[in-house]
C-alpha cells in the first residue's frame, strides 16, 4: 500500500514538474540524520494538487537530533517548491500528546488549534498521520496512540466548532438586518459541516480550497447537500431562507442542534477597549488604542450602558437592541465572539467511518 502511494506520488511529481523523488531526497539530504524518516504530506500526497502545488516534507529525526522552526525551509527544484519541516520524533509525539489533551478538554479550540500556527500544527499532525514515507522507516507511535485517530478527531472538532461559529453568526446577522453577512456565514457554516463530515471518514486535512474537489470525487455523495449553497442569494430577501436552509443542512450533516437560541447560552461578546464617553450631544464610543470612534444614537447608548461594565456579555442575556449593537460592533472588528465550551466529537452525530474514539 505504502509502496503504491509512493509510486503514485512519484508519478504526479514527474507529470507536474518533471522531478523525480530521488532529486527531492538529494536536495534535502543536508537536513537528514542517520535514522530519520522522510514523509511527504499535503495535497500532492493525498491525490489532490496540480502543477502549482508545492511538496510538503517532514523529516522526523531521532531524539537528540536538530530541529528547525515551525516555519518551513524552502527549496526549489525547477518549478517545484519543496517545504521542509525538520522535527524530532519526540517533538512530534509531544504534539500528538497536546492534541489528545485538547480533545479531552471541553474548552473551545479557538486558541488551541484555532490560530494560524496551530492550524500549521494541525497540518503537521496530518502529514505525520497520513503522509507517504519516501525514505527511512515508518514512524511508530507511542504505545496506545493512533496517529490517524488523533489527527482525524482533531480535524472533526476544529471544523465542527467553526461550523457552530459561522452559523450562529449567520443567524445573528440575519436578525440584525445584515443579509450579506448572514448569507456569507451561512455558506461558511455548510462548508465547515461538510469538512467535518468528510474528516470523520478518516480523510486527511487539506486546505478549504480542496473541499469542492473532494465533493467532485471521494465525497461525491455529499455534493447534492452542498449544491444549494454554492451560490449566494442575490438580494436581502432571499437570505432568510438561505440561512434557515443552511442551518438545517448543517444540523443534518453534523447531527447537532444549531439554532441561535440553543447556541446563545455558550456564546459571549467580549469587549477589548471600547468606552462610551458622552460630550454634550455627542455619544462617542471610543477605543483610542485602535484609533476608532463611533457615534451612537441615544437608544444605542442606552443599550450599551445596560450591558454593564464587564469585559464580556452573554449573548443569551442580551436584549434585541443589545444583540444588534454588539453584532454591529463585532462586524466592525471591535468585539470578539467567544465560546464558553467546545463541541466535543462525542456530541456530534457524524458518521465516524473508520475514525476511532481517542482515549
Amino acid at each position, binding site marked *: 500500500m505504502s509502496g503504491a502511494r509512493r509510486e503514485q506520488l512519484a508519478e504526479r511529481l514527474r507529470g507536474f514538474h518533471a522531478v523525480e523523488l530521488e532529486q527531492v531526497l538529494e536536495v534535502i539530504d543536508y537536513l537528514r540524520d542517520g535514522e530519520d524518516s522522510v514523509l511527504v504530506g499535503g495535497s500532492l500526497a493525498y491525490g489532490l494538487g496540480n502543477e*502549482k502545488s508545492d511538496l510538503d516534507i517532514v523529516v522526523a529525526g531521532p531524539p537528540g537530533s536538530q530541529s528547525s522552526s515551525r516555519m518551513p525551509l524552502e527549496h526549489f527544484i525547477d518549478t517545484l517548491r519543496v517545504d521542509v519541516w525538520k522535527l524530532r520524533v519526540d517533538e512530534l509525539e509531544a504534539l500528538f500528546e497536546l492534541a489528545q489533551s485538547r480533545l479531552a478538554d471541553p474548552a473551545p479550540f479557538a486558541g488551541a488549534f484555532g490560530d494560524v500556527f496551530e492550524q500549521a500544527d494541525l497540518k503537521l499532525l496530518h502529514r505525520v498521520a497520513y503522509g507517504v514515507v519516501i525514505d527511512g522507516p515508518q514512524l511508530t507511535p507511542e504505545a496506545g496512540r493512533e496517529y490517524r485517530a488523533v489527527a482525524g478527531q482533531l480535524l472533526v472538532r476544529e471544523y465542527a466548532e467553526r461550523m457552530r461559529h459561522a452559523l450562529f453568526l449567520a443567524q445573528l446577522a440575519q436578525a440584525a438586518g445584515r443579509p450579506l453577512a448572514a448569507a456569507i456565514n451561512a455558506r461558511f457554516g455548510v462548508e465547515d459541516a461538510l469538512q467535518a463530515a468528510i474528516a470523520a471518514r478518516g480523510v486527511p486535512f487539506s486546505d478549504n480550497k480542496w473541499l469542492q474537489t473532494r465533493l467532485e470525487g471521494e465525497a461525491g455523495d455529499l455534493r447534492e447537500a452542498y449544491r444549494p449553497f454554492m451560490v*449566494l442569494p442575490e438580494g436581502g430577501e432571499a437570505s432568510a431562507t438561505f440561512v434557515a436552509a443552511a442551518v438545517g443542512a448543517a444540523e443534518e450533516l453534523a447531527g447537532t442542534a444549531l439554532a441561535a437560541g440553543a447556541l446563545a447560552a455558550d456564546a459571549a461578546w467580549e469587549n477589548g477597549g471600547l468606552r462610551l464617553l458622552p460630550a454634550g450631544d455627542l455619544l462617542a464610543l471610543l477605543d483610542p488604542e485602535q484609533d476608532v470612534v463611533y457615534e451612537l444614537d441615544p437608544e444605542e447608548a442606552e443599550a450599551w450602558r445596560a450591558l454593564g461594565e464587564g469585559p464580556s456579555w452573554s449573548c443569551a442575556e442580551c436584549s434585541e437592541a443589545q444583540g444588534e449593537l454588539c453584532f454591529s460592533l463585532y462586524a466592525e*472588528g471591535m468585539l470578539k465572539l467567544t465560546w464558553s465550551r467546545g463541541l466535543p466529537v462525542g456530541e456530534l452525530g457524524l458518521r465516524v467511518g473508520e475514525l476511532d474514539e481517542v482515549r
Partner: protein
Amino acid sequence: MKSVDLGARRYIWCRGKAAWLMGPPAAQWLEDLRGALAAGQTGLARHVSRQLAEDCAVMLALTLTHGRPVPEPNMRAAWALERLAAEPVAADCWELIRGFDELPADEQLVERCAELQRRARELVGHVPDALSPEGYYPALGLAREWIELVSAVGEGGFLPGEWTRGSDA
C-alpha cells in the same frame, strides 16, 4: 506631491494591512487559479476565484475607505463589500464572491480575477511573492522598510503572523 487627508497613523496602518495581510494571499490565489484551470479542477477554481475576490475587496476597502480594524475572517467579505458599496469595483468583487452556477470560460475567469488583482495592486502597491524564488529576498527587503514605517507612526507590526512568531513575544 499628493497630500494625504487622513491621520498618518491610520493611513499607514490601512495601507500596510492591505499590502501585507491580503497582498501575498491574493497573489497566490491567481497562481492557484491558473493551476486549477490547467488541471481541469473546477471546484478549486470556484473556491480560488472567490477567495481572490474577497482578499482584493478587503485590500480595496482598506485603501479606499480606510476602515479600521479589519474584522475576523468570517466577516471580512461582508465588511469590505458594504464599505465598497459606492465604488464601481464592488460589483466585480461581489460576482466572484457570490459564486457561479456555471463557471465562466477559463480565460474569462482568469481575466476577471487578474483585472481585480491589478486594480487592488494599483492602489496598494506591489508585494513580491515570498513563496517564489524571484520574490523571496525582495519580499524580505520590502518587509524591512514597512517595519520601519509602521514603527515611525507608533504602530505594531502587521506582517503575516507566521513571519514573526517568537520575535514579538
